Every structure is written in structure tokens, then in C-alpha cells.
């Protein structure tokens, strides 16, 4: 999950911190120290994460666009300049644009707002923004909540008492609520010093940036893995399942499918002893297979080898939506059994076939020849089809009756008896218009079909049964 660091560089951040007169620090220095600590942690534990650094006062500036280069981020921190007053709203607009341009609105994003808790005065201050929240036009909407899923962490280089003396804490809490409530406000414990800022960023790291370790099992084979980005908890239905689902231990079984879904992740570490992940990856790649992975009760995903354009490849995990049947064409995962139990190999002895995809029990409307007469053209087409075949009797006897029965069924279901009579009339007319050269069977079939339709149109249960079909009249002109 990408991170945006939003750093307050207003004048108030330059306020000195009294440290028993030994050394003089500004709040800014403490903030930079804390951020450096975060960057160092990420460089060693989260190096695949993208982070951007944005500084703001009344204006905002993107100092480092999204990068995995933590040196660049630290360098930018070391050359921060001081500006005027704090204006959170415009900075949030900046974050909104930055994230959407880079990742779109579906990618969840973390925002770390580093401030001293003095949130500006007058117009542009957070207080002002929040007070005017309800009196805005569509063009000047408050940027929160962001369109993308957001985790908001507010790092206050101030202690809680200080913030509670003014309305700063209330305003920050309101900000967190507006962003969707996912996140936390961190304040400093005790006196403002290097140690307490370390403590505060340490708590952020534990809360949001701890590496995700898991164990991948395949029977008795296993491997410790780290997953990037970490799989976030999912709430499926807050009513029936209010507890979010989280990933604990991974388990893997192998399956052969060919589809791809959401939220993939990569795993890695270092060393020279054999690792199951590497073996699995190699074989998945060579065989072109994917492995089914179980992440929890009724939560599955798949593992596969993904290669980028530079020929590097890694083991990827895609998580499916939690549930017993995440991909309908595989059926229920719990009902996938080993092929060794099947009477004959469902993949064929030479891998020439596959038991997948499963077909649904009932075909979808577009896969069966449904009759819809909402538009007049639909009805006209069906009638014309019958007439076209009627003129080619007896060659087209089968098609003629097939189309006739389709129309008959629909007309009976829709209670459209008038149509049955109408088509019967049309068939009788066709009968009278048959050329002299016509096969004698044509006339027999036409009048037989017309008579059957008329009988059906009376609603008489003997002739109007839905499952009944009009069968061709038995004639014998061979002799």
C-alpha cells in the first residue's frame, strides 16, 4: 500500500523545544528525526513499498514523487525549508490529486500527516474548513473522504495535553472521522525530545508498518515467507459477518486453473539453503500451473510465477474474495478433491483435457435461445422465421416445427393467445398460396400446424400444455 508523507513546514514547526537548556531543537527537527526512523525501517523491512513526500504550508509542494528510493526521501527531508501558515485542506487536495493520478481510485493508500497540531488560523485553517463543511458547492467540496480507501495517521509533534488545551485535538479527530475512520492519531508521551518522538514513530511502525510474515505449507514442505503488500483485513457483510477476516497462516494445495484476480503480493528473503518457495516457483513456471492457497476458513487465493518484462520472475499470490466459491467456474473449493480418487484422470493421460471450467446447472439467457418480444422487431423476426421455413416445406420440416414450438411456448407463457391465432391464420394463408409445383406434404404440414396452434389458443389444457410440442404430421408420400 503506497504511503504519502505530508509534512507540515509552516513557521510554527520551527518553534524551539526546551531541553533543559542543553541543546536547542525545533519541532521540525524532531519530526524529521521521526520520519528518518520510519524511512530506515521501511528501507530494511518494506523496501517494495512506494512512498511520496509532500511538504505543505499555505501551499503544498511534492518534494519526492512515489519511490522505493529511501535515500532520496531522507535527502529531501534534510533540506526542508520553512514557510508560512498551516493549511491542511489545500494540502489534502494535493494528496488526492497525486494519489489518483498515480494509482487511480481503487488502490488503498496510507497518509501520514506530520504536524505540530497548530492547524492554522482564519481562512484556510482546519477549524475554518470544518466549520464551513456543510455550506459548500459541489466544486469546492472538502477533499475527505478520498475516493480511494485511506488509512490516515496523524503524527503530532506535541503531547496530548497541549492539543486538548485548544480545539486542535477535536479538529484532528473530526478529520480522521471524515477520512473514513481508518487510522489513528499519535501524540508524544512526556517532554518533547528525540526519545519521545522515537517512541511515537515506533508505535506507528508497530501499528502500520510491521512486516507481514507467514508460513507457506504444502503438506510437510514449508517455507517462511514475507508478503508484500500485506493482505488487509476484509469485512464481507457487516451484518452477517461483522468481524473482519484476516490472514493468519497460509496453506497450499496445488490445483490447475488459469485465471487471475486481485491483490497480488510478492515474497522474498536471503540465503543459500534450499527454500520451498523457490522450488514451487520454479515448477509452477515450468509447468505453467497455478497453486491454490488457503488463507483461512473459506478464504482462498492462488500462487503463480509472474515475470515482468525484464525476465525477472517471482512468486505472486492473488487473493480471491472470501467465500466458499470465489470463482464460480471452479465450483466450491471444498469440493475439489485429488485426481487420484477419480475413476480416470480428468486431465487425460496426456494433459489433453481439463475438468474445468464447470458449467452452471442452468444456462444463462444469452446461452439459450430465449424468446423476448419486448421490441416489436423481436416478434416480427420470430414470425418471419416460421414463414420462411414454411415456404421451404417439406425440406425444412424440422426447423419449421422447432421455430413454431418456440413461438408457441412463449405465446402460452405470456398469455398471448391472439398471436397463436394470428400465426395460424398466416399459415393457412401460406397454404392457399402454395404454388402448383409444391410438394403435397407442404400443404398437409401447414394446415396441421395451423390447426394445432388454433387448438392451443383456446387454452384447452389438452393442447395448451407448455411442455407439449407440436410434432410434424405423419405423412407417407414415398409410395
Amino acid at each position, binding site marked *: 500500500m503506497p504511503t504519502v508523507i505530508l509534512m507540515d513546514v509552516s513557521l510554527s514547526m520551527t518553534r524551539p523545544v526546551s531541553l533543559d537548556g542543553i541543546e536547542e531543537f525545533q519541532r521540525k527537527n524532531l519530526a524529521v528525526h521521526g520520519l528518518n526512523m520510519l524511512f530506515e525501517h521501511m528501507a530494511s523491512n518494506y523496501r517494495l513499498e512506494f512512498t511520496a513526500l509532500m511538504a505543505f504550508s499555505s501551499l503544498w509542494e511534492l518534494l519526492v514523487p512515489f519511490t522505493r528510493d529511501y535515500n532520496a526521501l531522507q535527502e529531501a527531508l534534510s533540506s526542508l525549508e520553512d514557510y508560512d501558515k498551516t493549511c491542511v485542506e489545500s494540502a489534502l487536495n494535493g494528496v488526492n490529486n497525486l494519489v489518483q493520478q498515480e494509482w487511480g481510485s481503487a488502490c488503498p493508500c496510507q497518509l501520514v500527516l506530520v504536524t505540530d497540531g497548530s492547524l492554522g488560523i482564519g481562512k484556510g485553517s482546519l477549524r475554518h474548513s470544518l466549520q464551513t463543511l456543510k455550506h459548500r458547492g459541489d466544486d469546492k467540496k472538502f477533499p475527505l473522504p478520498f475516493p480511494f480507501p485511506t488509512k490516515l495517521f496523524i503524527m503530532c509533534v506535541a503531547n496530548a495535553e497541549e492539543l486538548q488545551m485548544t480545539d486542535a485535538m477535536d479538529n484532528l479527530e473530526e478529520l480522521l472521522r471524515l477520512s473514513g475512520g481508518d487510522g489513528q492519531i499519535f501524540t508524544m508521551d512526556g517532554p518533547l525530545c528525540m526519545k519521545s518522538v522515537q517512541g511515537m514513530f515506533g508505535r506507528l511502525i508497530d501499528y502500520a508498518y510491521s512486516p507481514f510474515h507467514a508460513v507457506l505449507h504444502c503438506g510437510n514442505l514449508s517455507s517462511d515467507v514475507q508478503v508484500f503488500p500485506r493482505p488487509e483485513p476484509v469485512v464481507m457483510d457487516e451484518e452477517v459477518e461483522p468481524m473482519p477476516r484476516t490472514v493468519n497462516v497460509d496453506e497450499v494445495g496445488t490445483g490447475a486453473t488459469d485465471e487471475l484476480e486481485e491483490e497480488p503480493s510478492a515474497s522474498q528473503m536471503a540465503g543459500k539453503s534450499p527454500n520451498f518457495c523457490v522450488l514451487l516457483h520454479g515448477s509452477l513456471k515450468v*509447468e505453467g500451473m497455478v497453486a491454490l492457497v488457503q488463507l483461512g476458513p473459506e478464504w482462498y487465493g492462488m500462487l503463480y510465477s509472474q515475470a515482468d518484462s525484464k525476465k525477472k520472475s517471482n512468486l505472486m499470490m492473488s487473493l480471491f474474495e472470501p467465500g466458499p466459491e470465489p470463482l464460480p467456474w471452479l465450483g466450491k473449493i471444498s469440493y475439489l478433491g485429488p485426481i487420484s480418487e477419480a475413476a480416470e484422470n480428468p486431465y487425460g493421460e496426456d494433459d489433453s483435457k481439463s475438468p474445468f471450467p464447470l458449467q452452471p446447472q442452468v444456462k444463462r439467457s444469452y446461452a439459450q435461445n430465449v424468446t423476448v418480444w419486448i421490441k416489436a422487431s423481436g416478434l416480427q423476426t420470430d414470425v418471419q422465421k416460421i414463414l420462411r421455413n414454411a415456404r421451404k416445406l417439406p425440406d425444412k420440416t424440422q426447423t419449421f416445427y422447432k421455430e413454431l414450438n418456440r413461438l408457441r411456448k412463449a405465446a402460452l407463457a405470456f398469455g398471448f393467445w391472439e398471436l397463436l391465432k394470428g400465426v395460424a391464420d398466416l399459415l393457412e394463408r401460406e397454404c392457399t398460396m402454395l404454388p402448383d409445383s409444391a410438394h403435397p406434404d407442404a400443404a398437409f404440414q401447414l394446415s396441421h400446424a395451423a390447426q394445432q396452434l388454433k387448438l392451443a389458443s383456446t387454452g384447452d389444457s389438452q393442447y395448451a400444455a407448455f411442455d407439449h410440442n407440436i410434432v410434424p404430421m405423419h405423412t407417407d408420400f414415398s409410395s
Partner: protein
Amino acid sequence: MKMFSVAHKTVFVVDHCPYMAESSRQQVECDVLTKSRAQGVIPLAPVSKSLWTCAVECSMEYCRILYDIYPKDKLVNYIVSDSEFHILNSWRREDQSTHELMSALAAVGPPNPREDPECCSILHGLVAAVESLCKITELQHERRTALMDTAERVANRGRIICLTNAKSDTHVRMLEDCIQETILDQNKLAAGSDRLMAIQQCELVLVHIYPQGEDTLVSDRPKKEISPLLTSEVHSVRAGRHLATKLNILVQQHFDLTSTTITNIPMKEEQHANTSANYDVELLHHRDAHLEFFKSGDLHMAGTSTRENGLKETVTLKWCTPRTNTIELYYCTGAYRISPTDVNSRPSSCLTNFLLNGRSVLLEQPRKSGSKVISHMLSSHGGEIFLHVLNSNRSTLEDPPSISEGCGGRVTDYRITDFGEFMRENRLTPVSESTHDPSGKLPAERAKAQLERHTRYWPMIISQTTIFNMQAVVPLANLIVKETLTEEDVLTCQKTVYNLVDMERKNDPLPISTVGSRGKGPKRDEQYRIMWNELETLVKTHAGATDRHQRVLDCIIACRSKPPEEEERKKRGRKREEREDRTEKNGNKETDDKSWQESERSVGLKGLLDKEDQESEVIKDSPDSPEPLNKKPRLTTEEVQPPERAKGPVSLLTMWTNRITAANSRKHQEFVGRASSVNNKFELYQHLKDENGMDVHENGKASR
């Protein structure tokens, strides 16, 4: 959408009273005469649908779309009402299909215009609808059972869609009041029953249908709350096309659907097969497929347009000529079922058939300028078409590290092919729920158990294993992991073991890895010891499973151990071997230093040694021959090794010396001692031993 939102249960209540037999007055010309036939033919009078027919076909269309997109757990109960109510299906899953409903509707037939209007009322159906909403569905039952102590989380909500011809607004209000009262009554009843649930929320959608050309007697009214349990809305619609549009909008609202129009679909003309024109096809699907557009407010960019009466919006996406570039598919973030709006139109069926035949279509956002952005893909899986959402933004997964940079990434001899074979043996296949024995393990659990068995002993790299590099072990290795063995399986395993014993007796080389060990690696009998140990390890992990597994282990243990007297002899032999070992070690040092010499010599001796090898095989190769008295002859074959080791790059000097040696050797007869030497050694005074009748084979074949 919550699992048990009002969308879980929909009751259609359709008016079957005599006035519904009235004509909608929308006429359909179904006798389209071609010019050539027109002369003298009186065209058939146009037909017109009754209000009933209009109501039924539009409600069926609603159900068709619903079932296409939610084949499961969005349920419809269809009721018609005249002098009494007729329930055409139940909440049961097998009753949920348009075919079932059409069949039941055919049995009902159109309203009887001669029936006494005084006895007929939509109310019968509405009361039945409320009763039906109290009935528990299979899903509700399953979840209640599954949640046990928190069963109250399973809600009971539902929607009633009433298609009728109301008399007035007062009449509508009377219907609402009646439903409200019925809900209260039914909820009391439900409280005392296991199979009923009280209604927590009911949404009434009343659609008043009136013929074309008439003024409506009922006014439209947006959703309003009648009580905390009941909301109601009224739609007053003319029969025919308008009704169809209305129900299409309703199904979208009720089930969070939205519309996408695929434009620029090239399609062969029916009449002129060699030309093609571009067509549009409208599809409905869950609105989450356009979440990105909706959230970013980028709808304009995506080409939305408002159509017809301004009530309906569609997102336009452009057809891209099919191609497959798998990298684009990695960022697929969701797949949603579709249903064509106009299912049997020619463009729709051309598109859906194309997709059902296994082709995929990438869809592009129409943009005025700039690069082409592919945002969606249409593709089918198992007879169902899905709209796939592709990530068109930068991905956080870009540039992942190579797996070779990680743990175990530098190891090069993974058993990749073997594990591929392992995966193929452990592939999964669907098991039908009906054949599953509910008291037994679920198929997936059996698959996991199989994985567990198959991995009890599974070395990951080639140099860690001997037995899995041996073709001879395959039959046993494949069988021993089975849950149960047949008598025949045991026999096969035993045969495998005997075969290995035989190999050992013949001194066949083993594929022992020499990685990490200097020189030629462990000695032959040490190699066999390693192999037997490994085989025993493998079989031991399964021996506890059944008696037959145990018998395989017993067989191995029995076969690898020698009878006591032989052990004795072997011990004696080993002492001597040790002595020799020592000398050999010294020799090895020397040979290491002068390895070129050795290889040179071995090349020179190759012909002779090969000959010797053949001879020794003639002696020992019959499996029926008795055990050799002493294992010693092995040494001979052991020494055959050097020529093999001498493979590899040959220096010019070596080649030259070889040639000279070969040339020289042809010029004289080789000393008997050198020609039949073992490791360049020849024991003198052998005849003394022969005379004593001891240790005939001490120096290989010399005495024979």
C-alpha cells in the same frame, strides 16, 4: 449489498383480474409482406398484447436479467392474483429459473374476461406475498444454522413488486394499509415458528399499468415510509415499451446494476457477407465494474451518455480487435457477470456467441486524445460471460525482485521437474456434492491429506537424494505414498527392493551426488548404504499406515541385512579393505598431484579395462548365480571408474602422450601383470594362494 438486504427476496404479484385482459392498444405488425408477394394478399391484421401479456413479459425480462447476473441467492417468488392467489414457484433454488416460471405462467393462462370482477382483487396476491416473505429461504436457514448463537444477525427483508391496474390513489393507499396490517399479523405468527421469520423491512414497488392512449388515474409517487417496516413507491406506466423500460430501470436500481455499451463492434452483414458494419451492444452488470469511474468522477472521460427519457445512463467502451497479451491480465481486479439488455438481437447474440466460443475482447475507454487506455475485458468461463476490470493505472506491484535474490535463490539443483510431476499428481478435480458421503472428509481435506502423505519425505534438491534419482526406485516411491496398498502393490514394492539388492550384488553404480565431496565421493558400498538408509527413511514415514506398508518396510530391512556368517566374512573383508583404503588414500594424494598422468594412463588402459569389465560381467551377471563368496570383486569395477572421470577437457600434451602410448603399446606385448593389474597394482605370487584354495577372488578375476 448485504447478504440479506431487501434484494434477497423479491415477490412479484401480478394482477390476473378480468380488466388485465384488456388490450394495451400497442399494435404489432407481424405480417411483414415482401413486395413481390404483396399483390392480391390481404395482410394479417396487427396483433396487440393485453395488459397481462405486457406485465408478464416485462416481469420475465426482469427475472432474466436478475438470474443472469445473480444466479444464486437473489430469489424470486411469483404470485398471480384473481379471485384467489396462485403461487407459481417457491424460494427453493431449483425453482429459480425463467423456464420454471414460464411453464407455470402457461398453466395459468391469460385472465378470463368473463370472470366476475367483484370476486377478483390484487389483494389476495399481496397478502400471499407478505406470507411468502415470512417463509425462510435455504440461504437464511443455512446461515442461521451456521451462525448458531448469533443467528439473529440473519435478517429478513424483502421487496414486493406489484404489477396491477389500480383504480385511484385512494385504492393504492388502501392496498398499502392492507399490506402494513398483514405484515403485523404475519410477524406475530412468525414469532412462534421455526420455518417463518418476522419481516424487518418490506419495500413495496407498485407499478400501475394502463393502456396506451388513456389517462392515468394513479399518480407517480417516490419512495415514502409507511411505517418502520414498510416503504412504498408508485410508478404509473403505460403498457408496452414504457413498461419494459421502467422494469429495466428498476432491476438496475434494485440490484446495483449499471449499463455499459460496447461500441464499434465489427460484424458481418447478414446480406453481404463480405462487408461489415459497426454495431453497439448494451450490457448490464454490477456497478462495481465501473467503481473507478464513479469514484474519480471520471464518467465524462469514460463516455457516459444519458439516453432516451433521461432516466438511464450507460458507460461507453470501445471494442478492441482481439489479441492476447497476458501481462495486461495480471492486473485484473474483478470479474462481473453480464446480461445483454437486448438478448436476442443479432448484434447481442453475435457478441455473446463470440465470447462463449472462448474468445476475449479488450475494451478501451474512448478518449478525445492521448494514449489508448484498456480498462475492461469481456471473456467467458464455463458458459458464463464476465466483464473483467483491468487496472489501467500504475501498479504497486511493478518491478518485483527476482526470486533468485531471495532465500534459497542461489541454489541451482532444485528438483523442478520432479516437483512439476508431483503437482500434476496432486491436481484437483471437482467432486459432485451428491456423491460426497457427508460423514466422510470433504474432498479438499482428502486432497490435503494426500499432499501430506506425498511430502513426508521429499528432498528439495537433487544432491540431497539418491533414491529419487534412481529409475529403479520409482515403482516403490509411487506406491508407498498411497493411503492403502493392494497385495499387488506390495509385490511390486518387494520386487523393487529385490531389484535393488540385485543391483548392489552386481555393483551397479549409483547416482550419488559428489557435490561437496572431494574426489570420487563415497565408496560403492557406502553409496549403497546411503541409498538403503534413504529408502528406509521414506518407507518408515508410511509404515504405520497399514500392515501392507509395514510389510514393505520389513522387506527392506530383511533384504539389506546379510545372513550372520556372511556378516562375519564381511567384517574380515572390511579390515583388509581398510588397509587398502589407507594405501589408496596415500595414492590418491599422489594422483591428485599428478592427475594428468593418471588420466593419461587410464585413457591408455581403457581398452584393456573395458575388456576386463566385460569379462567380469560375464562371470557375475546372471541373477541366478550364487552369491559371491566375497564382496571383494567389487574392487574391479570400482577401478573402472577412472576412465569416466577422465572425461572433460583434454590438454594437447595429454592427447599427444596418449597417442604415443597407444602407438607404443601396439609395438610390444604388454606385461601380463600390467595388463591385468588392478589400480595399477598386481599381486605377485598368486599361485600360492590358489594352491591353498583361499581367497580365489582376492585380486579380481586373475585366477579364473
